């Protein structure tokens, strides 16, 4: 059995306007030491998925079904209290904006010490030493002094490093990073990505990186899962997604990604339209109203939800177009445009 396995995970929120299907039948597996990138637009269900794995929807209004297996334990059916004991210890999370994700009234050190002492029965003194070690390990200079600083006294990049130190303080086996670099300066982003890659190797943790930035996943991920409207639309290795993408939505993401190796005069190709409503999900393929190739399915995309099918060697695609057609479109119509310079 895989270290982490999601089976048909559904997270729905009942609201006054209707049922919001934030995550709707998501399955994937992840091994220790591997990195999975989850990519998609805002509202595609990435963050809801990660919070669901941590069990942070439990006790709320969310309706959760399906299975989450972590190291042989099923979490969806497990008690809130049991999942709490796993949080921070077995699985930890790095949030997007460290300034709002850290408590403004406690020092960085206190917050790391707190995280460590929840799961380790040690004195404050020992925990403090551990906190200083962790801060040093994530590359914060003079950690013995900085441990007593407040989050607002750190720069953005330092704060994210501190956040990472906090998440790693209990040596988690699963680390989820939700948009870890989105709130940072571009120059700092690369440093944080390097740091995460190094630390993951050291800690041998399974890493899930959630982002809308394909550049980030390209840096870090072994595997990539593309989400759209709460569903996985394409899954494959980093090579599959960047070299042989088969889903029109993935093509759209690639086309809208700014690249330094292209002519500055060249226009990006944004995906037209906006993300689907999760209450009134479009009929058939959720992407069909925005898909440039929808008419080539002879109307099928409008009425039938496509299955997630394997096209070759673990590469999964949710599209009505036949595999050969998709490859031909990629080869003849999309790829030349992306590479034109």
């Amino acid at each position, binding site marked *: 059995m895989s270290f982490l396995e999601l089976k048909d995970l559904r997270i729905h929120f009942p609201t006054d306007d209707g049922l919001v299907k934030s995550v709707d039948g998501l399955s994937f597996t992840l091994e220790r030491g591997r990195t999975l990138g989850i990519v998609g637009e805002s509202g595609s269900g990435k963050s809801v998925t990660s*919070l669901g794995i*941590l069990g*942070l929807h439990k006790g709320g209004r969310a309706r959760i079904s399906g299975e989450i297996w972590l190291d042989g334990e099923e979490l969806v059916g497990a008690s809130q209290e049991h999942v*709490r*004991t*796993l*949080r*921070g*210890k077995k699985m*930890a*999370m790095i*949030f997007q*904006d460290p300034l*709002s*994700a*850290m*408590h*403004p*009234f406690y*020092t960085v050190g206190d917050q790391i010490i*707190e*995280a460590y002492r*929840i*799961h380790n029965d040690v004195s404050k003194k020992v925990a403090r030493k551990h906190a200083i070690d962790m801060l040093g390990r994530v590359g914060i200079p003079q950690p013995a002094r900085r441990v007593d600083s*407040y989050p*607002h006294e750190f720069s953005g990049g330092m704060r994210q490093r501190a956040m990472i130190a*906090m998440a790693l303080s209990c040596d988690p086996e699963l680390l989820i990073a939700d948009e870890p670099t989105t709130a940072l300066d571009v120059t700092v982003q690369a440093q944080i990505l390097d740091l995460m890659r190094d630390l993951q190797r050291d800690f041998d943790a399974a890493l899930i990186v959630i982002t809308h930035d394909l550049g980030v996943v390209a840096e870090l991920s072994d595997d990539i899962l593309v989400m759209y409207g709460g569903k996985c639309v394409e899954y494959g290795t980093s090579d599959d997604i960047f070299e042989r993408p088969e889903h029109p939505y993935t093509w759209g993401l690639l086309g809208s990604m700014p690249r330094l190796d292209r002519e500055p005069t060249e226009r990006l190709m944004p995906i037209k339209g906006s993300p689907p409503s999760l209450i009134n999900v479009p009929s058939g393929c959720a992407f069909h109203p925005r898909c440039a190739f929808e008419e080539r399915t002879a109307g099928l995309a409008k009425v039938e939800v496509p299955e997630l099918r394997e096209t070759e060697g673990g590469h999964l695609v949710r599209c009505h177009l036949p595999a050969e057609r998709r490859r031909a479109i990629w080869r003849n119509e999309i790829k030349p445009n992306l590479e034109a310079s």
Partner: protein
Amino acid sequence: MVTYIIRRLIWAVVMLSIVSIITFAIFFLVPRLAGATSESLAARYVGRTASAEQVKVAAEKLGFNDPLIVQYGRFAKGIVAGADYDYGPGVEHCPAPCFGYSFLTRLPVWPDLLDRLPVTMSLAFGAAVIWVIAGVATGVLSALRRGSLFDRAAMGVALAGVSLPIFFTGIVSLVVFSYGHPFRITAPGGSFTPIEENPAMWAYNLILPWITLAFLYAAGYARLTRAGMLETMNEEYIRTARAKGLNERVVVVKHGLRGALTPILTIFGLDLGLLLGGAVLTESTYSLPGMGKYAIDAITNQDLPKVMGVTLVAAFFVVFANLIVDLLYAVVDPRVRLG
């Protein structure tokens, strides 16, 4: 930090001076503008049967014939350096801080105030403990169970608490819990036992005023806490705290409530400062001999030195409480820099 405190203390003195000038002006300048003479002012303090001659002597003795600025200067000097008063038979020295002698009773004001202060402090601090605990706890529970029956009931009671005046709730509670009922929980007003004399009696005599006063304030604190908690519990740092694996109670108290504490602290400082100057309605309703009662009596009798004294002491507490709140702000919220 030290320079900040010094600067604030200087400001406090300036504030108090302004307050004293205004109070002084209201009592002396306004009647004169309305046409009162030194004699008609003095007439209030000598009794109805006094002759015109006696009134004139009294006016001279009370210093009403001097220019206002001189009168005020004499008063201010008394507070800082003490003063000598010539009351017929001999000269009396009134040591600093001297708020003068009552126009009516000829007794010095300051010892009177010192007598009243423990009553008001007992009332204010006791009530504060009750209202902070009750108000904040209710607010937290309401916020966590937003929309529940508890929340709606608590907020309904809170609305009543804010709206009902002390002289209503106080009298109702006296009728229900005190006057001659078998289940009375306190003596019918008017008695105050110093805490150092008999702590049990002290509490017994004050429990009803405490609860009445606390009811009024707890209501506001419950609403304030509830609003603050609803906001902070949606903050991202709460999600972080949960993601660490903290149990929910710690998340709520250490992270949520801590984040919502700042505005509560501000209001608390101001409320307490104001109350220490006298809980006028509560003290009147329960006939407690505190600062508020003293102020009412002083104003009714137009006894200027008493009014000045009680006003300045009340203003001092407000100014002082403000200073303490500002200093505590920097402790509670490390992002605040004093300077």
